[in-house]
């Protein structure tokens, strides 16, 4: 384990050196990412400029509602586990898009280290720092600008258990990427499957109650991104959904197990490419 941590540090260092070699590429990536996030936040702002709050109604009666600041808080929070996964484990995308297809996976199998770990930590995606920083800024901004009765409901001690569960939230992202990327061992390419599954995390940035049962179940248990965003965020804000914390641990471990199973099964079906 210690050896792997040391190796990870070395890989990150190498990748940072590489970054210094391609400064323009890095800058363009960072600017592009900022623009993308700005557009999304602008979109939220426009929607909320037209409505006072996001409401969940049953038979026309408002059961629950979320103000702009709360939605912004959830949105900001969602970027943190997502950003951390993105920062450290971005290379999995490459697996489904070209690494397996071109036979480049050979390299990972001829080294005396765990192949999954090697793929995972080979790339250090600095762009993701932007994601994390924006997340933190949104959390701070939304908290500061909250109406008094919303802000009063926050108990900052609740941050501690959420932080403790954070690694498992990150594991949800990593496991879903791993499982879908590993499909490429059979199909040669699976980048689009990964993309499709990954993008459902967009749903998780909003209160799950606004969705129908199907989507709600899907983003809570199947592709459980709600456990990485809405549930922990609303727990901090209002103390709701305490159950989601242990569930996050269990679901993430189950997903991790499944993803590893697919990974190792996949490796034995890996066909390389002609040379």
């Amino acid at each position, binding site marked *: 384990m210690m*050896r792997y941590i040391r190796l990870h540090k*070395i890989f990150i260092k190498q990748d940072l*050196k590489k970054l210094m*070699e391609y400064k323009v590429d890095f800058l363009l990536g960072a600017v592009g990412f900022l623009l993308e996030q700005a557009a999304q936040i602008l979109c939220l702002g426009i929607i909320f400029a037209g409505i006072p709050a996001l409401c969940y109604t049953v038979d026309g009666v408002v059961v629950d509602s979320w103000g702009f600041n709360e939605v912004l808080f959830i949105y900001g929070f969602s970027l943190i586990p997502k950003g951390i996964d993105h920062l450290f484990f971005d290379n999995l995308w490459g697996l489904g898009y070209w690494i397996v297809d071109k036979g480049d996976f*050979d390299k990972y199998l001829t080294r*005396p280290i765990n192949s999954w770990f090697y793929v995972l930590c080979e790339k250090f995606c600095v762009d993701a720092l932007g994601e994390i920083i924006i997340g933190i800024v949104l959390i701070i901004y939304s908290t500061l600008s909250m109406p008094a009765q919303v802000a009063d409901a926050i108990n900052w001690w609740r941050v501690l258990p959420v932080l403790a569960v954070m690694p498992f939230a990150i594991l949800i992202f990593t496991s879903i990427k791993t499982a879908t990327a590993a499909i490429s061992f059979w199909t040669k390419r699976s980048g689009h499957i990964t993309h499709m599954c990954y993008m459902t995390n967009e749903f998780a940035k909003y209160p799950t109650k606004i969705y129908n049962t199907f989507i709600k179940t899907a983003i809570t248990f199947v592709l459980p991104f709600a456990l990485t965003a809405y549930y922990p965020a609303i727990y901090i804000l209002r103390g709701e959904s305490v159950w989601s914390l242990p569930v996050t641990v269990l679901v993430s471990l189950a997903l991790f197990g499944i993803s590893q199973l697919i990974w190792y099964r996949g490796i034995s079906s890996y*066909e390389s490419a002609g040379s």
Partner: protein
Amino acid sequence: MENKEIMIKVKDLRKEFRKAVKEPGLKGSFKALFNPKYDIVKAVDGISFEVPKGEIIGFIGPNGAGKSTVIKMLTGILTPTSGECCIDGKIPTENRKEYVKEIGVVFGQRTQLWWDLALRETYMVLKEIYEIPEDAYKERMAFLNEVLELDDFITSPVRTLSLGQRMRADIAASLLHNPKVLFLDEPTIGLDVVVKDNIRKAIKKISEESGTTVILTTHDLEDIELLCKRIVMIDKGKKVFDGELSELRRRYGQMRELKFELKNPDDFEKLSYKKDFSFADDDLSIDRTGGTVNVRFNSDVVTVEKMLSYTLSKVHVKDINVKDADIEEIIRRLYLGGGETDETADSHL
């Protein structure tokens, strides 16, 4: 070789691929989408051989023969469909991580170096991956430096290296952890004569000084001649020859290729090698495109001298040359030879 300890053991190794059969065109692709049909392709079909410690063995065969598939199974990249391979008692499918510590791999067409970084950085990372102690690393680097002359470009980014430098760098990278077995898949592909020669010398020296067992695949007969005593030849997934190079040469290497260009293409009619020399079917083949004629013949039956003087006495040529049979030619001959090859293969086990 005084030390007859077996390093590599391959027994009845097989690999089958499932290949989707598609009819041509977009329509065919659609059909295959809804009603996929598969063919089983036997890429490697029951291969067995053993390699003693310290030996350099040439692994040859035409493109698509299954060489790379065998190498990829031996390096733990592909999982065999059945059969076993083991290096120094270790089996790749059982404990890949332990197994690959014992081997070094160079794929000529693909680099394992960190593309965007200075070459030295690659070696630093490999040192950590293989957990090489500092003093062993220094000693090894010094040795590899001396043999492969890395000093000139060790601080350059890998992407700026020439192909020859990159190949030397790649070989050094595969040997840093002092593996027991080195796999070289076409190490001289695309290199110029001088660089090829340097690389061959380096491989030889490394094998001698470190006692490394080397498995080499190549299409260059010279690689084989200069490096390997023994060759294993495979085709269509089966072993067709396993023995000393001299044996192969003696049995199949007497073929020569006589190539010339006629001043007047119609003169071709005047040549009747088969009739005038009474060649057997196996010993002669003639290809002709326009004025260019390509005659392959067995120089045991008719000497090169006789063939030349016969040709020159019958026709006027613009250009003429004689070549040794290349590997492809020997393989082609082996096929014509048929049955006896199996016997040779078995007798060597």
